[in-house]
């Protein structure tokens, strides 16, 4: 795969080339960064930590039409999905998350919506140089420069960017912007290696998950679940903002005679999630729901797909309104083993 250099002076031109392609990049939305469409001529700054909402919506929208119908008319119309999308500035953890949940969406039954969107999206990553306060990617199989799930990875070397193609889609982008790029050299590679070693060293938070996946079943009735969930208000922020959380609800919406069956993000932290019509609830309190969230990420998913369903992005810690901290929960789990 090729590696090329882009002088920062040519960055606006590079972005302009991509805006012909339904380009989305992190933009300030209120007080938070969030992926949004970039108009031609609009500037894109790569000076940000990470977006508040992960880019998982590119492949798994918060609400998505599965099919349309007219009430009383027994015909189903599937939505057309043919628009390509380029996400510029995806952090390695978020791209890894897309790759991880793809395993679930391919498990025995291929999920046509997820897989089609995955096919249509090109992920241009941005390696991390300043990990956030609660980042712990390197504890869960990731790294500030992990290329898993990405098509192209960009390194910010100060006065220039180093672009590394990861997939054929990445190669295509390089080919399409070739006139702006120059060949990579040894000094650039050296600078990149140093930058990434420094970035890795800046990650402060760590999880020693050795023994956790296999040890979790033994802690099913442990008092720690009550204690770590005591302050939870069941808002679901941790799961909505989690790049690997993939649970969804399916609902019908009808306006007049026009109906659609859609799916939307759901959360295992909500009481209604497992509530039976009879009133019975298999996970009746926040203790069981928190236990499920941790077990799902660190045991069930590992059992089925051999990878932890957490990429260490730290969003659930940063944005929990009552300061519940998954690193701390995992430390308690480890202690209880």
């Amino acid at each position: 795969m090729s590696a090329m250099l882009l002088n920062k002076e040519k960055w606006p031109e590079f972005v302009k080339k991509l805006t012909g392609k339904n380009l989305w990049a992190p933009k300030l939305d209120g007080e938070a960064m969030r992926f949004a469409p970039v108009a031609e001529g609009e500037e894109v700054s790569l000076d940000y930590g990470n977006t508040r909402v992960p880019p998982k919506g590119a492949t798994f929208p918060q609400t998505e039409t599965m099919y349309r119908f007219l009430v009383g008319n027994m015909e189903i119309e599937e939505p057309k999905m043919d628009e390509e999308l380029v996400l510029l500035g995806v952090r390695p953890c978020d791209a890894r998350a897309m790759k991880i949940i793809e395993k679930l969406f391919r498990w025995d039954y291929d999920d046509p919506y997820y897989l089609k969107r995955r096919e249509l999206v090109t992920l241009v990553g941005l390696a991390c140089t300043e990990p956030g306060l609660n980042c712990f990617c390197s504890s869960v199989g990731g790294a500030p420069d992990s290329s898993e799930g990405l098509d192209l990875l960009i390194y910010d070397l100060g006065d220039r960017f180093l672009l590394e193609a990861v997939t054929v889609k990445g190669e295509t982008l390089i080919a399409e912007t070739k006139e702006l790029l120059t060949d990579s050299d040894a000094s650039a590679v050296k600078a990149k290696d140093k930058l990434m070693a420094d970035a890795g060293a800046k990650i402060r938070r760590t999880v020693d998950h050795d023994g956790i996946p296999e040890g979790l079943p033994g802690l099913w009735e442990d008092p720690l679940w009550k204690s770590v969930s005591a302050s939870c208000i069941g808002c679901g922020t941790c799961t909505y903002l989690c790049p690997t959380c993939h649970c969804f609800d399916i609902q019908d919406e009808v306006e007049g005679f026009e109906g659609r069956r859609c799916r939307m993000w759901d959360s295992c932290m909500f009481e209604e999630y497992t509530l039976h019509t009879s009133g019975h609830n298999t996970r009746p309190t926040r203790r069981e729901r928190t236990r499920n969230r941790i077990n799902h990420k660190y045991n069930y998913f590992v059992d089925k797909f051999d990878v932890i369903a957490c990429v260490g992005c730290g969003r659930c810690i940063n944005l929990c309104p009552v300061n519940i901290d998954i690193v701390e929960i995992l430390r308690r789990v480890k202690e209880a083993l």
Partner: protein
Amino acid sequence: MTADNPYIPYFATIEDNWYETGGDRCIKTFKVVFDDPAVRDSWSHKPGQCAMIGVLGEGESMISISCSPTEGKFLRFSVMKMGKVTQALHKLETGDKITVRGPYGNSFPVDDWQGKKILTIGGGIGQAPLRPIVEYVKANREKYAGLTMIYGARSSGDLCFKGEFDEMSKCDDLSCHLTIDIEEEDWSHNVGFVPQMLLDLNPAPENTVAVTCGPPIMIRFVLENLKKLGFSDEQIYTTLENRMKCGIGKCGRCNAGGMYVCKDGPVFSYAVLKDIPEAFA
């Protein structure tokens, strides 16, 4: 359920429908036939499997298929009127259409049970997933060493499939034991709870498979009593239900521990089930 989209349902027409029970939570049985002859021919399910049935504009619910494939090229669903979707289903009559996708989940290993005596222990609507076993064994009697069915409900009016039991008592290898919780006039069968009736009948565990489904509290005591009677964990099966949306192991909610009831279940042997946390939650 097209080749490339498992979420797209087939259409099926209600060929017949009738009430099994009355009251606020009445149970209605729908006999449906797929509209597309190709689907009718290619569809195959096994006892214990479920299907997502629904009404466009209202939603879908996972319902166990309450007929055996040996009965013909149709499906039966016995639906209790409970929530939004089941209420919408209850409004439908013969000639109306529903959507169906599936069949989902594993099934009762009826082929592995050949040569054995089958004991089903059901309560209320829990007889719906057991009925396909009863019908399957009835259609393949030479392959099984007999069938004993225990079935109970709160009252005689709450028993499903009532007309189907009489013929069983005429056969030497089939027996049917009905019970209701509270004494009623003109009730010629047993009065008492299902788990107690199981103990009273005292079936021998030798060469027998016991399958139970019903309210959680009934299942708990049936399991206890089967153990008292000497049944091993491997001889006991049950089928679980949980809230479901996708039916294909994606949407997340039906898990009991690490098992998705829609895909890894709904049928579990007690040998497996006893180690699944949340299985009896």
